């Protein structure tokens, strides 16, 4: 069984390429975001998964709900997805698309978790350093977690930079028990 992200990738790549060619990445992003939101609605979910619903009905309903939020290309994507019975992976397509878009724009999402709220200057300095390290524009979201006790933890994609007291205590515990 292939994984959902593997199935979603070709759709996302197709949408991305089309959006890039027609210089409408922003529009695509908006459309996919909207479609994903619609498809993840509980009622819609149940409707999509209902085996009694004929695919042409599903398509008509979905397009009706979407209204004029989807342009011609967006509607075509939905048609293809309904035809291949892949409506349930719409959210995965959207996230894969956003990843591709971010890559294209050279931005990386960074999660900065700090024990105490850092000052704006500190965040600015941190982002600058992260940009130097990863060679890309960093879009940081800052949150506060007092469980870290002290220090900060930065998550950029799969990479985690742990400079928190909690992490170091865990390491110490591991070193002593090993």
């Amino acid at each position: 069984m292939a994984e959902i992200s593997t199935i979603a990738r070709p759709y996302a790549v197709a949408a991305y390429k089309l959006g890039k060619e027609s210089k409408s990445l922003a529009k695509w992003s908006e459309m996919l975001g909207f479609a994903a939101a619609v498809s993840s609605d509980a009622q819609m979910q149940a409707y999509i998964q209902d085996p009694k619903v004929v695919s042409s009905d599903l398509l008509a309903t979905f397009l009706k709900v979407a209204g004029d939020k989807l342009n011609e290309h967006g509607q075509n994507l939905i048609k293809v997805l309904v035809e291949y019975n892949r409506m349930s992976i719409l959210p995965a397509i959207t996230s894969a698309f956003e990843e591709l878009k971010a890559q294209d724009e050279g931005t990386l999402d960074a999660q900065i978790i700090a024990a105490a709220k850092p000052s704006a200057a500190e965040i600015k300095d941190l982002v600058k350093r992260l940009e130097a390290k990863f060679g890309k524009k960093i879009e940081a979201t800052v949150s506060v977690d007092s469980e870290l006790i002290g220090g900060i933890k930065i998550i950029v994609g799969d990479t985690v930079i742990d400079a928190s007291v909690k992490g170091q205590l865990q390491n110490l515990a591991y070193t002593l028990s090993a």
Partner: protein
Amino acid sequence: MQLSTSEISELIKSRLENFSTSAEARTQGTVISVTDGIVRIHGLSNVMAGEMIEFPGNTFGLALNLERDSVGAVVLGDYEHITEGDICKCTGRILEVPVGPELIGRVVNALGQPIDGKGPVNAKMTDKIEKVAPGVIARKSVSQPVQTGLKSVDSMVPVGRGQRELIIGDRQTGKTAVAIDAIINQKGQNMTCIYVAIGQKASTVANVVRKLEENGALAYTIVVAATASDSAALQFLAPYSGCTMGEYFRDRGEDALIVYDDLTKQAIAYRQISLLLRRPPGREAYPGDVFYIHSRLLERAARVNEEYVEKFTNGAIKGKTGSLTALPVIETAAGDVSAFVPTNVISITDGQIFLETDLFNAGIRPAINAGISVSRVGGAAQTKVIKKLGGGVRLALAQYRELAAFAQFASDLDEATRKQLDRGRMFTELMKQAQYAPLSISNMAITLLAANKGYFDDVPTNKVLAFETSLHGFMGSKYKALMDGIESSKDLAGDNEKAVEAAIQDFKATNAY
């Protein structure tokens, strides 16, 4: 287990000293699924193939499948506490096990952790379990013998230091017995032994360890055990761990002997892992690389030359060759050597010792089939005296088999044929040997000389072994100097041969058996 307080504080002190508090950058991933010890992980974008992955709860895994959107890893040990959504991280390390002389006399698991209750292994070094075998330049041809102490093996299928000799046969044919006897006979031969038990019952392993201990063999032996209750991952890794421990000695100009008991079970464990990782099954449902798991393991058993040892030790050890001799064991089903794994391992090794159920049941133990057992390189390494005297054994047994088949139809036989049959029967009887009773070179030489010169011819077949035992006792007490001479020179010079013959005549004249 007793631990003194100073020991504990020393331990903690050294660990605190080595503990650094710098910020740690690592790659992490999320567990997607856990099924039968196989974990699928999302993320871990920088993971290496074969890298160790750290799971919560001080558990480690091994990354085996690197796919586009996920990583397939096998958990080493318990996996019940790992759940979907757990965070795991890369360690940047390939799996390592402790190596060194500190392991000798110990029983460890596939990760090198002690399981014999004798306290921690204070090994100073660790080494990677997967290593590339020495290349052609680093090798030297096999020219020194490994004495197994078994008459039939040493005379007909000699094993040399650095050779890979397969022990193959059905269940209950004495495969382990041959290997254990070979280990027991290494006492005082400058050989470190490693016994790797794969997928065996824990009670069987305990028995082997006890037997080694009773015979004083544990003093130079490391036992690596991955029992049937250990996870498939550990059963798969155990041979590589043992091999790394053996290579420590090989690379330092010493000799080591490793027994893999048995590789069939390792292949089965690997098949389990591969199928759970959804790798495509091939013949007998084994994955495509089942040949490679055995070839890369057995290729590491080698004799390395002086330059290699000198280079490896940075000039500390000069002019010594190192060797790692492997005795892999393969279990066949109903004597079928054309099954997948047996054919693979037969083609990899430098010969095989073939054990048969029929022979075993007929009381011929070790149940070695002399016709199809071969040693492709051992002849060059055979002890001089055994080579000189043992040449006739194989021939006599071959002729005996041929004649015995014919003689079943003929009612009366001519004198020459009958004599040859008698001789064959005598040799067959003489090749029998009790378990845990390996013979020294001198005793083996006396037996073979007596047989070659016809001193056994007038001994009834059922008395052959009794005759041999009392002959050895007699020679050991009355002609000790002569025996010691053979033992140390490992040869039989012209004068000595006459002296031995005279001694045997003396024995026959004066002793009853």
